[in-house]
């Protein structure tokens, strides 16, 4: 019983963190009809800043890291991305009222990763002083790209069967290229390269690192506002999306937490790394995934998958999954 009480107390403390506060604050603002707007340009700049910071830090760390210890977590990351998409497609295949393509697209989006969600997880881990390898965020593309490619390829195979070969060939390299060219991944990869091949320690320490938390709080506010503003879109599609979007992040995260724990005992993957991996699995893409899916599966209804992800999936991943996984890590690994 002590274990459970301790668990609940720690969970409650997590809800008082400023990161979650800003998210809920953003939702409340829109709910009250506030006229506050944060310009789009600022949103884009913040996303760039956060991913650059994450990339630089990761790159600087990979310089001294042992590549062998990254191998197993990277393989696990790919496996999780693939399993999430297959689970999603399986779930939606049981619900006959949902158009197949919409199911494929939603599963793909939930397999893909949200940069803002894992940036929030990084800040919360630092607040709790739980260590993680700085290269863990660099695993992002290993989950993101396989999930998007798999969902789009399967959807096109399905559509081809329906129309007896009327659709065009799926261009797998095209999807990978589009993902890599997306704003989030380009910034992350550039940051990684700069961290690896140059010595950005000064600009990192004096600019990117100190601004990270402040910018993240604004980003959380924007995410909250967007989540509430998009709820009306979700109301127009089947309720099953909301059900999926609520439970999927928790189930995906727990699955990744389990696999990450195995990696912890086998190759000494850090507890913070396990949490970040779980958060990556729990998150659903908000920046790069939707446009890629829109062009890859054009017949799927974007209101369905974006509504599910932005207004339910992401808030659940940030407000429920991150605190839950941190507390699980604290209890299981005793950090």
């Amino acid at each position: 019983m002590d274990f459970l009480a301790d668990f609940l107390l720690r969970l409650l403390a997590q809800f008082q963190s400023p990161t979650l506060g800003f998210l809920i604050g953003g939702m409340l603002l829109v709910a009250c009809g506030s006229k506050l707007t944060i310009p789009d340009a600022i949103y884009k700049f913040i996303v760039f800043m956060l991913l650059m910071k994450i990339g630089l830090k990761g790159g600087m760390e990979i310089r001294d890291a042992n590549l062998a210890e990254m191998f197993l977590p990277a393989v696990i990351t790919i496996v999780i991305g693939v399993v999430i998409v297959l689970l999603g497609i399986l779930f939606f295949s049981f619900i006959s009222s949902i158009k197949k393509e919409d199911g494929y697209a939603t599963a793909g989006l939930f397999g893909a990763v949200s940069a803002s969600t894992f940036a929030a997880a990084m800040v919360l881990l630092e607040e709790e002083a739980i260590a993680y390898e700085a290269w863990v965020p660099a695993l992002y593309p290993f989950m993101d790209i396989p999930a998007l490619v798999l969902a789009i390829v399967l959807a096109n195979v399905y559509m081809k069967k329906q129309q007896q070969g009327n659709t065009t060939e799926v261009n797998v390299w095209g999807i990978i290229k589009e993902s890599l060219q997306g704003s989030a991944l380009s910034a992350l990869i550039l940051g990684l390269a700069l961290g690896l091949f140059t010595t950005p320690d000064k600009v990192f320490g004096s600019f990117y690192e100190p601004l990270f938390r402040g910018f993240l709080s604004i980003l959380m506010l924007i995410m909250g506002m967007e989540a509430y503003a998009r709820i009306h879109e979700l109301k127009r599609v089947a309720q099953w999306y909301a059900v999926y979007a609520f439970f999927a992040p928790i189930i995906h995260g727990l699955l990744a937490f389990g696999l990450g724990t195995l990696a912890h005992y086998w190759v000494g993957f850090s507890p913070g790394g396990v949490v970040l991996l779980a958060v990556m699995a729990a998150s659903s893409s908000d920046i790069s995934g939707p446009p890629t899916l829109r062009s890859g599966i054009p017949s799927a209804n974007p209101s369905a998958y974006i509504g599910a992800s932005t207004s339910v999936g992401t808030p659940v991943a940030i407000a429920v999954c991150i605190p839950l996984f941190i507390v699980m890590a604290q209890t299981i690994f005793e950090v």
Partner: protein
Amino acid sequence: MTLHVAEKVVIITEKIIAKGVCQIIDGCGATGYTIVPAGGKGSRNMRSTTERASVVDDFANIKIEIIVNDYAMAEAIMDQVKDKYFNNYSGITYLEDIKILRPEKFS
């Protein structure tokens, strides 16, 4: 001043397919086009024009105007865009009779 009769094709659609639509326009032989951001209300959804941060920017709408002085070319552009995109993407297209100066610019 002498004005010449010409045709203006207007296409209001999603920003994400702008590149493909422009390829069709070029392929049909038009000499140019104008693209402006668009917003409003249609059968699929409300599209805002505000400066508010939008997490998925590529779903913004645009209005493309193409001036041609060949009616067949105008029809070809409208037809091809409709066949290629309007089953899956939201969009409308219409034709206006207009008068232009300097017709040599459009042929």
